């Protein structure tokens, strides 16, 4: 591997997901803790999770938009703060 490939390996090294990621997956999976009764509960879980899944996706999309909006506000606010501080030194 040449220098660029080595730098790419470094730059693209895996990074940890946000804290609590695994807990969110495991804690929110419907039916996971009910596997002993899966045969009897399967139909109910499938129907319930279809609606749950749709709402979940809607929620994640709303969250994504809010995070985007707040990031933009943070960027602009930070830039203006820096300008004001520079002028008032």
């Amino acid at each position, binding site marked *: 591997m040449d220098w660029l490939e080595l730098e790419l390996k470094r730059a693209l090294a895996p990074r940890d997901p*946000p*804290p*609590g990621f695994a807990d*969110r997956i495991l804690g929110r999976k419907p039916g996971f803790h009910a596997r002993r009764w899966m045969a009897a509960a399967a139909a109910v879980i499938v129907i319930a999770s279809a609606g749950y899944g749709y709402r979940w996706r*809607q*929620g*994640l999309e*709303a*969250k994504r*938009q*809010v*995070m*985007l*909006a*707040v*990031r*933009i*506000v*943070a*960027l*602009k*606010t*930070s*830039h*203006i*703060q*820096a*300008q*004001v*501080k*520079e*002028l008032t*030194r």
Partner: protein
Amino acid sequence: MKPIRALILAPAFVAALAAQQFQIDLSALAAKASDTVDVSLNGATLRFAAKFLDGDDPEEAGVKKLVAGLEGIYIKGYKFKGRGAWSDADLDRIRTQLKPPDWSRIVGVKSTEDGETNEVYLRTGPKGITGVAIIAAEPSELTVVNIVGPVDLDSLATLTGHFGIPKVRIPHK
């Protein structure tokens, strides 16, 4: 009949109050833009999204705190390939809506050298802040923000330090 009509209209009236606080009419710039941001989040969407924000994650907790109680975040942003796409007339169309007694300008920074204009306005009512407007104009970029509701300025200030944006520090010369 009249009382029933009034009742039906009331919720719509309330909804209108909670919507965007001024018109961001920059549609003429959209055609010239190479990148566009158009975010329109009303109170209901913010409250719904907040349920999915992780209070244990410092960044998401900060966002959750900021959006709590807000009634809307509206952003229009345009990036252009070159300079000169927007003019003061475009900014004036926004500014004429941000005048006293409802609005007051708390920050106004203009740099002729960099071609930048940045302004922050607050809308206040009997109970305090009810809205924030930001106009951030650079030579090849223009962003207008309206945050509706009781904005916590401390929460807004602490946003720097999150999202990978370094806390503002000016090096000593």
